[in-house]
């Protein structure tokens, strides 16, 4: 593990942790402007977090360590992804961990920790949110795997850095049928996993329609700050993975300081742009009925399956 490699990991962590609330702020601001509002500014999520960290954390009576550890597991698992996945640099010393299957498992670990915490509160809404979240996760995770599998088939490795480097080496592959199909499948799954419209409405106040929000209704103060930061990081990580797997240009292939600096700027730009596009898209649609969501996810699974077939038969 070289010093330069460690710097690369630290840069990546700083970008994801520091930038995640700004991404959420940017998406809210884009939405506010399109609604004719003035908006709270992109720094608002950071102000919210600063304030939440100063508040007391109330733990409801009767909850166990499952409730207490939920936010920490979610945060830690997302932090690992932020450290090892090829967001800024493919030359990470932790490269060996950046495996597609490891990433999906880590994402699922955070989801499961939070759903168990939602059940642990024993409230009606906590349990309802957990059951919905698990339903969606169970339908979405296989699609992430399939989409990633379609990309890894052509480089012969499920290592994310290898996939990114493979695409960098052969740019024409981005327009191959397998990649395009995988991109569609991946996009749907990212929306579902990140809890965005039309699957879940991040701004809702109606307990009956909530998914993610319903699980975290009982968290307060510091605990809530950790959950919110981790959710913002998950969104950043998911958007970061989608841009870097499908449009990898700008990723540093070495740990030279200048390369890292440029790659950071390009990464922030790409993710910010994708976030703005997603926020704009959300203005035009309403939340779907819960029972239509499996149809959407089944459709994306089909795209994933076609992508895998195409990567074998049309390559």
């Amino acid at each position, binding site marked *: 593990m070289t010093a330069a490699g460690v710097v690369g990991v630290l840069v990546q962590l700083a970008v994801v942790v520091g930038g995640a609330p700004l991404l959420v702020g940017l998406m809210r601001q884009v939405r*506010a402007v399109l609604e004719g509002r003035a908006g709270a500014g992109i720094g*608002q999520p950071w*102000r919210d977090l*600063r*304030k939440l960290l100063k*508040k*007391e954390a109330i733990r409801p009576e009767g909850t166990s360590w499952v409730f207490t550890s939920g936010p920490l597991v979610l945060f830690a698992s997302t932090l690992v992804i932020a450290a090892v996945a090829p967001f800024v640099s493919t030359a990470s010393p932790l490269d060996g961990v950046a495996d597609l299957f490891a990433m999906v498992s880590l994402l699922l670990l955070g989801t499961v920790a939070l759903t168990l915490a939602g059940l642990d509160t024993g409230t009606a809404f906590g349990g309802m949110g957990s059951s919905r979240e698990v339903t969606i996760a169970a339908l979405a995770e296989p699609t992430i795997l399939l989409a990633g599998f379609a990309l890894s088939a052509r480089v012969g490795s499920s290592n994310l850095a290898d996939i990114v480097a493979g695409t960098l080496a052969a740019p024409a592959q981005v327009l191959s049928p397998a990649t395009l199909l995988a991109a569609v499948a991946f996009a749907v799954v990212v929306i579902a996993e990140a809890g965005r419209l039309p699957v879940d409405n991040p701004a809702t*106040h109606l307990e009956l329609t909530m998914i993610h929000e319903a699980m975290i209704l009982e968290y*307060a103060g510091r605990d809530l700050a950790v959950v919110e930061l981790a959710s913002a990081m998950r969104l950043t990580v998911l958007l970061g993975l989608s841009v870097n797997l499908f449009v990898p240009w700008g990723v540093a292939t070495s740990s030279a300081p200048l390369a890292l600096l440029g790659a950071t700027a390009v990464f922030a730009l790409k993710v910010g742009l994708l976030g703005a596009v997603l926020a704009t898209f959300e203005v035009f649609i309403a939340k779907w009925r819960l029972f239509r969501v499996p149809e959407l996810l089944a459709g994306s699974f089909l795209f994933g399956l076609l992508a895998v077939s195409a990567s074998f038969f049309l390559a």
Partner: protein
Amino acid sequence: MSVLGKIIRTGRVAEPALPVPPVAGAAGAAGVRPAAPGPLAGSVQLRHIDAGSCNGCELEIGSAFGPVYDAERYGLRLVASPRHADALLVTGPVTRNMADPLRAVFDATPNPKRVVAVGDCAMNCGVFAGGHGVEGAVGDIVPVDVEIPGCPPTPEALIAALRGLTGR
């Protein structure tokens, strides 16, 4: 794409922001504890509790958070759970059925917290004073930090008082 056309034609409807109000009791309420921003500076999440209001106050709260007045630009936000809240926005006289839930919500809100009594009813039972189902004003049940007079208070008055909490 009719929505897109509408967005472009409508443009920005938010009124220009007013200058930052002087601290505390901006609405001119008497006998109110000063609400210095302190730990809540820049960001206040509000949980609205209807303790028995006629819904006139709710309409004004709704419009204060609509696109025209856009209270969110001052760092205010309505949330779904008292655990997420920094301040409780209580409307209406407290009816007998809502007295206990109001106390429970107050206890469920993490410190530091503020209570905002919205409207004449919340301050002194207003037109419902002496009603058989009325337990008392909000101040009789939980400690009130900010009072916003009016029946109902205008969105301007609401926002001016709430900006005293965020300091923005």
